[in-house]
């Protein structure tokens, strides 16, 4: 599902929620019966008694985005709760097992069931949180990564001005100059990109496993650091300054409704300001439901080794391999 569709659906949901109180209900325990067959849907209120409830204060409101991180494993809650009879269920399961898409979830009238609906809202909210959240600083401290910024000042401009996310701020350049080793074989950089959650969830395992892999290959690794609000091409700016042979950028992917915590590793041989996109390569979909993070780290080591062997990356590498 693409972003536009999500936005459209959200819009419809919000307008529905806003509309509701106008059909004033006098009893909270009443049940609304919708007549879907007539052209103009019409609602009958079935009251279940005389008890008058107080009018609800306010209405359901979409909160502002900074909700605290929840300790809910939404993969677990996705398991279907009701099981129809075995035979039918088995057949359906064969199909649903093939995709994380929301198929075979049933319906109530023309709407999704409440659980499906809530799950959808939850996943959507998680995606939004991932974009607007911040990476846990203690994680960066643990991994010994110092933080620098791009030319972006706030999230709004990060989204509106992708070009700002591709260049380091002047302070950042100074700090990198002062703290990083020049011209290593491999430079690791990390950025939150469009999902801070992806970094929180996967960085430790990918990063440590990658370091271990590079060590066992005997490669020389530069001083790694974290770039706040960066985009993929930020590696060009870093490459221009530090002149490493290979840069690997671990960055949060644009979140979706299947996973809001997916991370990518972008790799490039000698990225400089004149690097073209076809020279970049990526290992994407690194998260608990995709490529296992530790395995991704180990695999990245062998990709870097290959890039160094062929002195090329991306399409150029494919050409050289023949």
């Amino acid at each position: 599902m693409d972003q536009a569709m999500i936005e459209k659906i959200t819009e419809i949901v919000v307008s529905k929620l806003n509309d509701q109180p106008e059909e004033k209900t006098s009893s909270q325990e009443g049940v609304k019966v919708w007549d879907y067959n007539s052209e103009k849907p019409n609602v009958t209120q079935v009251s279940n008694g005389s008890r008058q409830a107080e009018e609800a204060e306010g209405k359901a409101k979409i909160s502002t985005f900074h909700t605290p991180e929840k300790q809910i494993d939404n993969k677990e809650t996705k398991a279907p709760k009701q099981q129809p009879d075995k035979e039918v269920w088995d057949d359906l399961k064969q199909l649903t097992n093939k995709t994380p898409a929301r198929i075979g979830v049933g319906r109530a009238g023309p709407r999704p069931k409440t659980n499906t609906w809530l799950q959808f809202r939850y996943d959507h909210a998680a995606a939004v949180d991932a974009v607007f959240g911040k990476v846990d600083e203690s994680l960066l401290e643990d991994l010994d990564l110092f933080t620098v910024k791009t030319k972006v000042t706030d999230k709004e401009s990060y989204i509106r001005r992708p070009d700002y996310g591709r260049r380091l701020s002047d302070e950042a350049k100074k700090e990198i100059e002062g703290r990083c080793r020049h011209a290593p074989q491999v430079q690791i950089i990390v950025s939150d990109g469009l999902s801070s959650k992806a970094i929180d969830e996967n960085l430790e395992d990918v990063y440590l496993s990658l370091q271990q892999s590079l060590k066992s290959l005997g490669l020389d690794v530069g001083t790694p650091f974290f770039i706040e609000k960066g985009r993929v091409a930020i590696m060009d700016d870093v490459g221009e300054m530090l002149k490493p042979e290979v840069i690997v950028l671990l960055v949060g992917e644009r979140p979706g409704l299947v996973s809001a915590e997916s991370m990518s590793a972008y790799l490039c041989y000698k990225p400089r300001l004149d690097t073209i996109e076809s020279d970049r390569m990526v290992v994407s979909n690194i998260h608990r439901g995709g490529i296992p993070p530790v395995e991704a780290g180990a695999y990245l080591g062998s990709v870097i080794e290959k890039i160094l062997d062929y002195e090329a990356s991306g399409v150029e590498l494919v050409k050289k391999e023949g």
Partner: protein
Amino acid sequence: MDHNKKEEILSAGIDIGTSTTKLVISKFSLMNTAGGTHMPRIEIIDKEVIHKSPIFRTPLASGNEIDMPEVEKLVLSQYEEAGVQSSDIKTGAVIITGETATKSNAEEMINHLSAHAGDFLVATAGPDLESIIAARGSGAYDYSKKTNKTIANIDIGGGTANIAVYRYGELLGTCTLHIGGKLIEMKAGMIDYIAPSVKKMAKQLGAPVQEGDRFEEATVKPLTDYMAGTIAAMLKNQLNESEPLLLGHQPGWEYPIDVMMFSGGVSECIYHEANCEATDMYDDIGVLLAKSLTEHPDLANWEWIEPTETVRATVLGAGTQTTEISGATIQVDEDTLPLRNLPVYRIPFDGGFDEQLVRLPQLIEEAVEIYDPAKEGQNFALYLADLPLLGFKQMQSLADTLVTAVRKKPKQQPAVIVLERDLAKSLGQAIRIQHPDQQAVCIDQIYVEHGDYLDIGKVLQSGVVPVVIKTLTFH
């Protein structure tokens, strides 16, 4: 492996059955099927049979022995005809089936062939495995993956009938019966041989059939009719434990069977009657048995479909369906391969990672007790099942615990670790860093069960290893 690049390997299948021996050579194409942004996933994308041998009579030296030099000569002559060398054969299986598996030199035979007829040719035997391989070769397995029907493949050869039931590509069960063409043999119109199981059955039926009698359809047909009825009862899960034709365990599939297909020598006479008109070709009851099966009213209750292979189902299964490919990101010490006949010791992690990690040394000690009680150095594969998603630190402690425990074994051996989840490279890497002197074979994306046997071939160009899983060998 590089994108869009194909690797081709040769695979051989050899089936030494009760009455016939055959061989196929096929060419597998391996390719990375994952998208450019994913970790590689090497799969067999094409299997092409490049040589099918004629159907030979199985060379027997005496009633109780297989003529080993003759079988080997036969195999090598077929290689020559196909223009391949033994050393070109990178994977495949030799299977010894039916009554032949009970011959006194069966095990020696099959091990000899597996060592001499290819780089990595796996020795297989056992009625369950025979059923599975036949169902894969006949097309029953593929059919079950394409439809939502439960299918039984009934492979009837000279000595045994091997049944395997599949649903959605999943094996629901197997069963083996003493039903086959060569259980009664004729010579010059006289009954020359009756297998002990059939004698017992004839006695129960009160059928007056004896060796030395003149062969008459009227007297023998009741016996083959009974065999057909037994197959019907077996399909319905209604077989008695005392059934004289039952070999091994009772059937026990939990779904009713929708469709069935026959493979094996006798099936040729079911689907292609014309090929079988010469009753005396094998001088046995194969033709009569086929007739009984076609006519039996109980068997008409199921939908019959034709297999893609009849008489060559098992050999095709052995040659094209036994090889699996490991995950592409693995870590192996190449000089330890190939490894043959490793029993699988399953260590489940569903009870919690930390708890099981503590128990690991003890479990490995138990495995040594089971598989190497005489401390002769029989290695085994540790299958870590239901592993949760491990983080880096957990992976380090798992690697350390494993190596420490494996080193307590009486003989120093490569640690063979098989995983379901795609984690082998990181585990292998952790072992290599922590214990550089420990040889290890870490492979993943292989699904095995406790008690299975495993053969692991040499690393292919694509960086994967061929793996053959055997549910049971000699028993």
